[in-house]
């Protein structure tokens, strides 16, 4: 009985390549009362640092892994329980967790991601699926969530969002054409073409209807998908979406496409964040590795033409949304320098959330706000 009331805080899997994380600092102390959504602990991965949020209400009874320790994904790092759970029961859970840590065993089943590719219109589209229904017949449930990254991004950019959402939903993240591990041919590179890829992905994965989430260019793509096939889309969450107003950092878009060296790319990437220290050596290196692959250069240049008309935005997502019946939530970083949130207001987006302390990469800088937005959109759009 007591076992059900003891919750194990485990090392999250932020991104498909993460196998372990280092605890840099505990934000809460043993004995602290914690609530769902509270930041518990700062964790550093090879790629990026982030705060792990609580998914329960209760008391943080014991910390198992101290600051400074490196812990495999899935291993217990702390134990949460109500005050009435006895110390003996808590200690038993802690002892078990310590044993596992010492043996280096992690609970792999908690963090399973299914990765693969599907064929859509002659292109190979890569994806990662996490959560309920991942694996055999994945995505058959009505509440599947599909995450679509932005220009130059990939499915791994949802690392702080996909895993937490997967506790309640099947969550698919895909690589758009020209990105990640998908085919690099973007065709004409139009929004309509990419929206067809998203809808083709739903077909290929047997997903009847989905909650679509898109960042930046991906926001414009999912809006176009919802306009083209309204019956397939239950809700939209647009994260710093392209196509609201005409202001855009055109120099960033062109510079990202043209950059071939670390010294060219790194200063540009700083513009993506409110906190530029998030641009790590690993992030720059990963993006350079992506940009060097044959066909990426042509794909990015084509997409720049889709996005820009001179130094202004070419696309108009606000107009597209006019014909979309499903609930739509828009999340935007107040300090977004790539697509400043100046042209969006209650007339263009009914549910608009401006997030402090976040730049264009809201889902990396304030992932909690993005997760909440998705959850609210999903709730509003569920039958």
């Amino acid at each position, binding site marked *: 009985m007591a076992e059900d009331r003891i919750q194990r805080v485990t090392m999250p899997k932020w991104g498909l390549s993460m196998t372990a994380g280092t605890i840099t600092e505990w934000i809460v102390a043993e004995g602290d009362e914690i609530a769902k959504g509270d930041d518990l602990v700062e964790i550093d991965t090879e790629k990026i640092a982030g705060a792990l949020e609580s998914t329960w209400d209760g008391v943080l009874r014991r910390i198992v892994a101290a600051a400074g320790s490196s812990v495999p994904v899935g291993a217990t790092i702390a134990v949460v329980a109500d005050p009435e759970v006895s110390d003996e029961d808590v200690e038993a859970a802690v002892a078990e967790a310590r044993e596992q840590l010492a043996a280096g065993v992690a609970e792999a089943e908690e963090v399973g991601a299914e990765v693969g590719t599907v064929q859509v219109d002659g292109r190979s589209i*890569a994806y990662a699926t996490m959560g309920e229904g991942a694996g055999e017949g994945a995505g058959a449930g009505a509440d599947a969530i599909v995450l679509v990254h932005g220009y130059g991004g990939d499915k791994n950019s949802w690392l702080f969002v996909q895993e937490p959402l997967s506790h309640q939903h099947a969550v698919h993240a895909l690589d758009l054409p020209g990105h990640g*591990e998908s085919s*690099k041919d973007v065709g004409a590179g139009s929004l309509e073409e990419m929206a067809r890829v998203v809808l083709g992905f739903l077909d290929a994965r047997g997903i009847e209807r989905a909650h679509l989430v898109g960042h930046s260019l991906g926001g414009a793509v999912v809006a176009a998908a919802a306009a083209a096939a309204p019956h397939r889309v239950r809700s939209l969450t647009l994260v710093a979406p392209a196509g609201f107003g005409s202001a855009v950092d055109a120099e960033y878009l062109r510079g990202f496409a043209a950059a*071939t*060296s*670390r*010294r060219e790319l790194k200063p540009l990437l700083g513009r993506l964040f409110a906190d530029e220290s998030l641009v790590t*050596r690993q992030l720059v*290196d990963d993006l350079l*590795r992506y940009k*060097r*692959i*044959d066909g990426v250069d042509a794909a990015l240049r084509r997409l720049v033409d889709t996005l820009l008309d001179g130094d202004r935005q070419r696309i108009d997502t606000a107009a597209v949304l006019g014909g979309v019946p499903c609930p739509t939530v828009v999340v935007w970083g107040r300090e977004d320098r790539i697509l400043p949130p100046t042209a969006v207001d209650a007339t263009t987006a009914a549910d608009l959330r401006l997030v402090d302390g976040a730049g264009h990469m809201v889902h990396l800088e304030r992932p909690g706000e993005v997760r909440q937005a998705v959850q609210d959109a999903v709730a509003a759009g569920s039958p």
Partner: protein
Amino acid sequence: MTRTISYREAINEALAQEMERDPNVVVMGEDNAGGASVGSPGEADAWGGVLGVTKGLYGRFPGRVLDTPISESAFIGAAIGAATRGLRPVAELMFIDFMGVCFDQIFNQAAKFRYMFGGNAVTPVVIRTMYGAGLRAAAQHSQCLYPIFTHIPGLKVVTPSSPYDAKGLLISAIRDDDPVIFCEHKALYDLTGDVPAESYAIPFGEANVVREGSDVTIVAIGRMVGVAQQAAAELAGSGIQAEIIDPRTTSPLDEDSILESVESTGRLVVVDEATPRCNLATDISALVARKAFGALQAPIEMVTAPHTPVPFSDSLEDLYVPDAQRIVNTVKAVAEWKRDG
């Protein structure tokens, strides 16, 4: 898609993908196709070169993997001539130590054509060659001769330190219109690492920041990059954070990345397996002394082989090649150096 493959497999994959992409790419060298036990020459690729790097290519690209006589002066000259006439030959010169017999073809012909013919001729040849100590192969099969090629204008010189770099740099080498000396360290062939299955090109003259650190800059070449990483891990335990720069190509050299790093750390140690006169360590030391003098907080140090041939004795060869402990000791001395001693 990214998988873990070896340095040897990465080079093989780069050759195969470029041969697939461009019918003008041909591979030639000693035992690249045939081998000792094969019935008639070129019937099957028994060997794939002395270290098996080109294995499997003969069957996939009939007529484009050529076995040559044991005459480096002849087949390197043939490769260079073919390059001027439109092919993109990748010639395998087994040991870099054998370059001596074909040096006129390389430094007086290939390196000069573009310049002497006013840009009207190009020589897109790649010479893949094995260098370095560690295989008990003695004085005539163990040298690090990339500094000699770096010295010559008109040649590009590549020294990949990882499977990822080996593939991307070889693809760039094959696509490049100038002669490229592609130096593979013989002790790295079995090193494994993450390599994308897709084709990709790493631009020349773009250093890799292998590790970030604020206390000292280590510039390391080829196999020494991995040795420097071991040293940096040990130094971190003593509270010294080393930044490691791998230039990837010694010509062209990414001077900016080296200078930028030294400007932030104030200290430089260059690790080069080549003998210490006129090598990359002296070249990079001179560069930093001239262009970042004001940033230096300690003398520049070099960790290199001694100025002797590579010994045949196992124990002496082990002493000859710079190891992590020598790098650690040198970096500590540089980090603790004070002006008034």
